[in-house]
């Protein structure tokens, strides 16, 4: 078997940031008609490699070859013109501009007079997005869409360019199984057209489902390249973590350990949460020592529910009680004082304070507790920061490094530390493992378990169904901002959840055209409601789910 022609290749690539050697002598080759997985821990340098490949960063050393010729891209635009199309990690679109304008920015269809032809642009945008199962008014500003839908827009944008290479940096971190499947369809089509695809993900199942080749990065070095089929899961994980096969096998990759003892009296109960167009009377209870999963399709209102409980969204009606005491609605400080902590979904814009250090980010919420009469006690902060940096294995050059410079996974850990330092009664976790590497994911999951064992009430929102099922003791299923089902006890299985979701989708069809525009769960969408279970089917059973 001769390998297909090289399209994009680098050799001996080195890239430094102040205080960090992000890429160290990395070699990497993308070939035509091949889906190349790029994996590694958080902060391994995947995103940096991609940014160097596409002209965002310039290499300090090393050689870049494109279509067999030495090349250098000064700007993303240059790379784009050369035929490299990229979906960067974190959605990078313009929130205030309309969906269609985002989709076509820089290559808008024009009329004879050189002016933009909006009629055509909207029509084509609508058609393009439909192909990806996103049905929205393309004239709406992009920010009215959920993160997942935005990700699909970014995907559509990247793919609709005539490209020789398509690079995707964690495109699925906020996607539903259904959309993941759509995405895979797209990737396969690209591959068949002879396009080189570079694919980054922390979800191993996905890699095995679509990728042909894999390159593993560790601490900025490329430690392995080879056909994915020949590399087992455990081996892959051990390569990423740099630990021996045996260690990894022992610890497993999923950190959840099973059911917990839940307290009788709910620590938190939300009644009839209502918000125009978003929530229609959601009620739920969280018991101490319990992990309550929140299931639902994209845009079903899980994020809103969590935010509403945390006081981050004003409510039309409804109330939240913590340990029997009702909360003032719409006030985050009140919720925090009552012991509710929310780990927001949108880490970049709502979570981290990028310009502040790791230390200050961790101490941010608990500042009042760390201070007397308005004066901050540095010693107490150091103590807390130390504890959590160790406990969560936060990887930073020092506690004084800016959080904005950390890798996504480490940023997430910093946020977790911020909330754990508050010793909350209830922890609301919105996609806590989004963008986190396997090692860290297991740690976070283990942590969730421990927290629940310590008597914390945990609300878990998670798009990865397998993870949701394994992590939760009970699952409440949302659809269109209403509770449509609850799984508990032995019913907490993937099949049951899939069934609940499928029924939900079917009911939705019954709603007719009056139904809201936001759901992608449209029956005329490209995939069948029962499909999504496919990618999460464990295809390789070397690693047991429970440690």
């Amino acid at each position, binding site marked *: 078997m001769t390998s297909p022609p090289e399209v994009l290749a680098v050799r001996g690539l080195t890239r430094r940031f102040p205080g960090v050697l992000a890429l160290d002598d990395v070699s990497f080759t993308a070939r035509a008609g091949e889906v190349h997985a790029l994996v590694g821990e958080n902060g391994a340098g995947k995103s940096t490699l991609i940014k160097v490949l596409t002209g965002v960063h310039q290499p300090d050393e090393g050689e870049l070859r494109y279509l067999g010729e030495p090349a250098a891209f000064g700007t993303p635009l240059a790379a784009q013109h050369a035929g490299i199309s990229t979906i960067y990690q974190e959605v990078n679109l313009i929130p205030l501009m309309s969906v269609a304008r985002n989709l076509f920015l820089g290559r808008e269809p024009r009329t004879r007079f050189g002016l933009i032809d*909006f009629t055509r642009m909207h029509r084509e945008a609508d058609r393009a997005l439909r192909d990806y199962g996103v049905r929205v008014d393309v004239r709406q500003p992009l920010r009215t869409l959920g993160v997942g839908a935005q990700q699909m827009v970014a995907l559509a944008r990247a793919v609709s360019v005539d490209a020789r290479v398509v690079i995707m940096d964690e495109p699925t971190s906020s996607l539903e199984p259904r959309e993941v499947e759509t995405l895979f369809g797209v990737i396969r089509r690209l591959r068949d057209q002879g396009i080189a695809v570079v694919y980054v993900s922390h979800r191993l199942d996905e890699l095995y489902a679509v990728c042909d080749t894999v390159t593993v990065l560790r601490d900025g070095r490329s430690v392995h390249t080879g056909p994915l089929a020949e590399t087992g899961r455990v081996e892959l994980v051990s390569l990423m973590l740099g630990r021996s096969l045996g260690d990894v096998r022992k610890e497993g990759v999923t950190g959840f350990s099973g059911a917990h003892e839940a307290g009788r009296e709910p620590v938190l109960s939300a009644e009839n949460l209502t918000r125009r167009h978003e929530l229609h009377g959601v009620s739920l209870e969280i018991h101490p020592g319990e992990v309550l999963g929140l299931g639902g399709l994209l845009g079903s209102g899980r994020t809103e529910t969590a935010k509403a409980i945390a006081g981050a969204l004003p409510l039309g009606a409804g109330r939240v009680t913590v340990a029997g005491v009702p909360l003032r609605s719409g006030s985050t400080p009140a919720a925090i004082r009552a012991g509710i902590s929310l780990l927001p979904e949108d880490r970049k814009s709502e979570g981290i304070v990028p310009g502040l250090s790791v230390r200050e980010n961790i101490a941010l919420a608990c500042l009042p507790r760390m201070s007397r009469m308005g004066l901050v006690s540095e010693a107490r902060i150091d103590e807390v920061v130390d504890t959590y940096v160790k406990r969560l294995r936060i990887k930073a050059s020092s506690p004084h490094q800016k959080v904005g410079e950390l890798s996504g996974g480490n940023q997430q850990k910093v946020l977790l530390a911020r909330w754990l330092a508050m010793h909350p009664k209830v922890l609301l976790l919105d996609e806590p493992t989004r963008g986190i590497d396997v090692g860290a994911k297991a740690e976070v999951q283990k942590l969730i378990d421990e927290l629940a064992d310590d008597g914390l009430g945990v609300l878990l929102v998670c798009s990865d169904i397998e993870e949701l099922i394994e992590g939760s003791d009970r699952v409440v299923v949302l659809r269109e901002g209403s509770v449509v089902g609850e799984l508990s006890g032995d019913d907490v299985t993937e099949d049951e959840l899939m069934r609940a979701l499928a029924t939900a989708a079917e009911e939705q069809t019954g709603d007719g055209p009056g139904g809201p525009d936001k759901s992608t769960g449209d029956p005329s969408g490209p995939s069948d409601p029962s499909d999504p279970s496919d990618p999460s089917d464990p295809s390789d059973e070397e690693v047991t789910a429970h440690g």
Partner: protein
Amino acid sequence: MREDASGTKATGGTGGTGGTGGTGGTKDDGNAGGGAAASAPPAAYEPEPGAGRGERLSALFQQHGALVALVVLTAIASLSFDSFATGGNFENMAVSSAFLAVVALGMTFVIITGGIDLSVGSVFVLGGVLAAWGSQYGTLVALLLPLVVCGLIGLVNGLLIAKAGLAPFIVTLASMLGARGIMLNVTDEGAKTYLVDKGAFFAKLGQGKLLGIGAPVWITVVLFVVGAVVLRRTRFGQHVYAVGGNEDAAALMGAPVARTKITVYVLSGLLAGLAGTLNAAWLASGVTILGFGMELDAIAAVVIGGTLLSGGLGFVSGSLVGVLLLKVIQNVINQIGSLDSAYQQVVSGAFLVVVIVAQTWLGKRRQML
């Protein structure tokens, strides 16, 4: 947000009531949006009826809060003062607003990219002085000299901001001083006022009339129509919005960020210079004591017109309405005719607060929906 066809459509039609004509570009866009909606299968995305109407209404308010204020104020003033709603008064207001409007047009572009240009007042004076000086060598020199110099100042602003990464506020603050320094330098520390020959063709650009309406008004209307088309219907315009909406994302999406920024500052310099030139033609002299505080008036007009200071959102017709609103407020204060100069300032400050609060509040409602 600015994208809503419903909202923008109204602009095209109602811009005219503002006094100085419509903005063709926005109108086009509105129609284009409507066309798309019609051609797409209707059932595909039917917004919830309630949401749609509420949203549209408040979109209308946010974009046209200033227009509503303008109409209301004009109506009240017409009823209260006999001499307000007269052709002469409207014509005066239109002509004397024209110069600020042209400056505000450039400022609109700058602010949509998330920047700001504090140098426009100084550049405006400099443009006028250079034009008046140049007018002795003919209309061409009178027009080109200020445009070249003011364009260069804009270019320096743009380069320092886009290439060196300096904050627009501080860069243009410095060039505000610099431009005034140059102006003082060419006028013997302000002692010399160059005059424009009243018979020259150049003077007609400021003083001439067509169909009873002053030339500066016509020029302003044309500039706004062109500006609206450029902003809405060209790729450059899209880049302006993209850079202001999220600069990093825009760069990753392949928008020429630096070039776009440089262009808007050059544009702002050019338009400020042109406004100064027209003003010099109108006053028939290169007055040296103009322009103080003009940058703040322009910013206020742009913001009142619904453009977001943080960038990414805005439209030129709003700025025109903003300028007219400021003008009408001033005119009304003069109509009262006996207000102490100190009270005048309090009144205009209070008025600004009311308009801004109304505007922000309506805008927020819209964001919440």
